[in-house]
């Protein structure tokens, strides 16, 4: 299978021309670190995309496999002195490959796009799938498979199973007005997302609780859908655009001061709706306006007087895993640290490279299992070296991956969203006040 790029989402020559081949992206790229090979580096991938765009090379399966091994963590963007917009070049290259049609692209890409389009983007289908997973946990079968029956599964299946979440909580599926403070200072809307509320309802509960204490009325527009981040990353720009339009309409109707997102991958994607819909005359301006109102929850909270409700002690050593799409895509690094640093009793033990990807990267952990586990293994070693028993995150994908890492490495550590720790601190203060 081969061919060039096609369709409306061609990578832009001007974006590619920013690259001066200096190689500064190499030492921060997880796949280059793991392989030492140029084509598994951002510089190499940019060179490949340029070669295909210029008609100097065919985008064969072999060539595309190098683009596919990219985690899209965008660490290279933080390291790049020439400001190459690597993330969107990679998204465009994947979209322009998908646009070749099902016969002229790798079958795995088609399967991935189908799964994203017909499961993730459809709440009812997604919930049915997750209901099975929940049954798997609650029936006790998961505990058996992870315990006495571990050897019954063939190794590849066991690796896949190890990735699965433990679904032992009731999902968060509320919408409408979620909470109303006594003295209202702002009205915000919460993206409840596709899998987030199903996997980690406690993160939504904590987010609502924290925002309420800060004087926000929190609403969840019922018509909202998945943010489309994974669709964009996988090159299914059409589905991503359809989801974006529905979300823009849903959140506009809510008439809020800000759209709050507590998953860094989603907040990053929603801030880029303007670019996603730039060629759609009817939606481009609306998308820009919408995007300017999106805030990651940590960014929003850190900009408030978040100590005002009273901070109680949360004793322990914590280490922070920067969410790639918070640190690199949104350049937000100080907000989570400011929040963690303000909580009494909590000591922040930084790992060596907190802003290096954990290997989760959306569907990556499933599609590129071997590389994902390699990247995770070095992450777990860094975490272990800090001696921390709490791992703070800002994204459910990272949480899922790090939980798998904790199980695999046997580390005695819990994984929590920063906002959960802040909520716990508020609760401790309230309890102390009686």
């Amino acid at each position: 299978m081969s061919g060039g790029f096609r369709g409306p989402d061609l990578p832009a020559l001007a974006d590619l021309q920013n690259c001066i081949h200096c190689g500064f992206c190499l030492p921060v790229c997880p796949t280059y670190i793991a392989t030492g090979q140029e084509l598994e580096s951002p510089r190499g991938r940019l060179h490949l995309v340029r070669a295909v765009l210029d008609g100097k090379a065919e985008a064969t399966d072999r060539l595309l496999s190098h683009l596919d091994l990219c985690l899209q963590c965008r660490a290279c963007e933080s390291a790049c002195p020439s400001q190459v917009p690597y993330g969107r070049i990679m998204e465009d290259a994947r979209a322009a490959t998908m646009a070749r049609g099902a016969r002229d692209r790798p079958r795995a890409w088609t399967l991935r796009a189908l799964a994203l389009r017909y499961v993730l983007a459809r709440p009812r289908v997604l919930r049915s799938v997750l209901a099975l997973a929940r049954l798997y946990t609650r029936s006790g079968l998961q505990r058996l498979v992870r315990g006495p029956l571990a050897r019954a599964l063939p190794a590849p299946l066991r690796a896949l199973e190890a990735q699965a979440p433990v679904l032992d909580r009731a999902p968060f599926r509320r919408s409408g007005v979620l909470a109303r403070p006594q003295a209202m200072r702002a009205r915000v809307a919460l993206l409840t997302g596709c899998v987030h509320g199903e996997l980690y309802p406690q993160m939504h509960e904590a987010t609502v609780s924290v925002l309420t204490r800060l004087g926000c009325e929190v609403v969840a527009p019922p018509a909202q859908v998945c943010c489309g981040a994974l669709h964009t990353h996988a090159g299914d720009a059409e589905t991503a655009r359809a989801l974006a339009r529905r979300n823009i309409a849903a959140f506009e109707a809510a008439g809020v001061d800000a759209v709050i997102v507590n998953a860094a991958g989603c907040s990053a994607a929603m801030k880029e709706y303007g670019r996603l819909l730039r060629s759609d005359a009817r939606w481009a301006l609306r998308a820009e306006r919408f995007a300017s109102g999106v805030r990651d929850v940590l960014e929003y909270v850190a900009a408030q007087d978040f100590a005002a409700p009273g901070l109680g002690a949360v004793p322990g050593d914590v280490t922070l895993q920067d969410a790639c799409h918070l640190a690199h895509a949104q350049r937000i690094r100080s907000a989570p640290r400011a929040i963690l640093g303000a909580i009494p009793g909590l000591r922040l033990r930084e790992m060596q490279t907190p802003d290096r990807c954990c290997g989760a990267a959306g569907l990556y952990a499933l599609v590129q299992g071997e590389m994902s586990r390699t990247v995770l293994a070095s992450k777990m070693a860094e975490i272990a070296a800090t001696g921390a028993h709490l791992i703070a995150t800002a994204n459910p994908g990272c949480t899922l991956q790090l939980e798998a890492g904790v199980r695999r490495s046997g580390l005695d550590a819990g994984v929590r969203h920063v906002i959960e720790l802040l909520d716990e601190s508020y609760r401790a203060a309230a309890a102390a006040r009686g």
Partner: protein
Amino acid sequence: MLTNALATVVRELQSALGKRHVLWAPEDMLGYEYDATIDRARPDAVAFPANAEEVAAVVRITRRHDVPVVPRGSGTGLAGGALAARGGVLCVLTRMNRILELDPANRVAVVEPGVINLALQDAAAAHGLLYAPDPSSQRICTLGGNIATNAGGPHTLAHGSTVNHVLGLEVVLPDGRITWLGGRQLDAPGPDLRGLFVGSEGTLGIVTKICVRLVPVQAAVRTMLADFESVEAASEAVSAVIRRGVIPVALEMMDHEIIAAVEHVLHIGYPLDAGAVLLIEVEGLRESVEADAAQVVAACREQGAREVRVAESEAERARLWEGRKAGIGAIGTVTPNFYLLDGVVPRTRLPEVMRGVAELTARYGFRVANIFHAGDGNLHPNIMFDELQPGATAKVLELGGEIMRLCVDAGGSITGEHGVGQEKRSYMEWIFGPEDLRAMERVRLGFGASELFNPCKILPTGHGCGQAHAADARRHLATPGVYL
């Protein structure tokens, strides 16, 4: 597709190194056709040896089958030195990235050639020691590449370049034998083959172990940013500082084009209205460093500096340096393409040479950005251009030649630190006579190099190179988009 001979070479490489460590798919070769400059040349296969014995195997296999072999590190070179000019096998040393020994008491370290410069710096810093050569690409360039080009860096002014810090080298000779040059001391009995090897750009052999000298970190350091109305005024100040008897550890110049680009990206706080700034660093004992800094400030003021800012904290110092280290990359944000030149002139000739560079560039209708090691007289004009404009690339290359000529005519040379590579071979005849070049060729033969051992580098001679290069140039010029 591979010819029969190459298919045999690939098979033999695979059995020597393991299948995973040999690439030959045509798509994969795209990733090894470039370094950090604008030339391109595609290898036929890429080998990733893990140790000296495997490097020797790669060298022997290619020699036996008359296939070119070329060593490569991280591919950050700026003269086409790591390009497979005539195809063949690229021997990539990135897997050999271990620091084998760090002996703080004797202040030496032994490393493999794929170790990143900054990784050695960090390891040494943990013991209060410094590996002095610090090229701007230090976060990714390898020690092996540093040896090949005799790399410098901002701190070369006081510490010297790589050759002053290498004690011994284990090398694979072009016939596949493994030997040591030099040792663990600064001087070794017999002729200084280690010194000869450093800067030979991988034309005499392939480095597999490197013993370097570490120096103690100085007790105190002062970093200053002096702000001038013009590049010429700043150039005059360079000599004025040295005339006062102070040798700063670094004396760097950035012109207004660079300042604008860096500020656009990083917001360091460089003065946007300056014609040029000098970044000057002095170090030494706590007692002497203040006096040296005062001398620097006085010299700059005497040459018309509008302001001399002294970094008040380590954070501010790091910030000032961050702009310098990212400066070349920042140019990428303000122009589609640029051509980075490397020349050297006597320090005192800087003002007139810089004027000449500006005049030449203007005459060709291009803009130039200057960021360089002014204290060494080592200039780096960056010619900005757009590859998509017909004929622009050819004109830029011609202008590059004229600027190199200017350096030579001012008593300087065609490279200060990046090396000659394949890019500047033809300029060698401007500085060396036929006898000089023949002597160099005989040295190469003395090391046992055939014409296929890293061909078409440094020396303007060599069968097939002239033609290959001319053909390459024609192909490049005919294909828009070849210069990324």
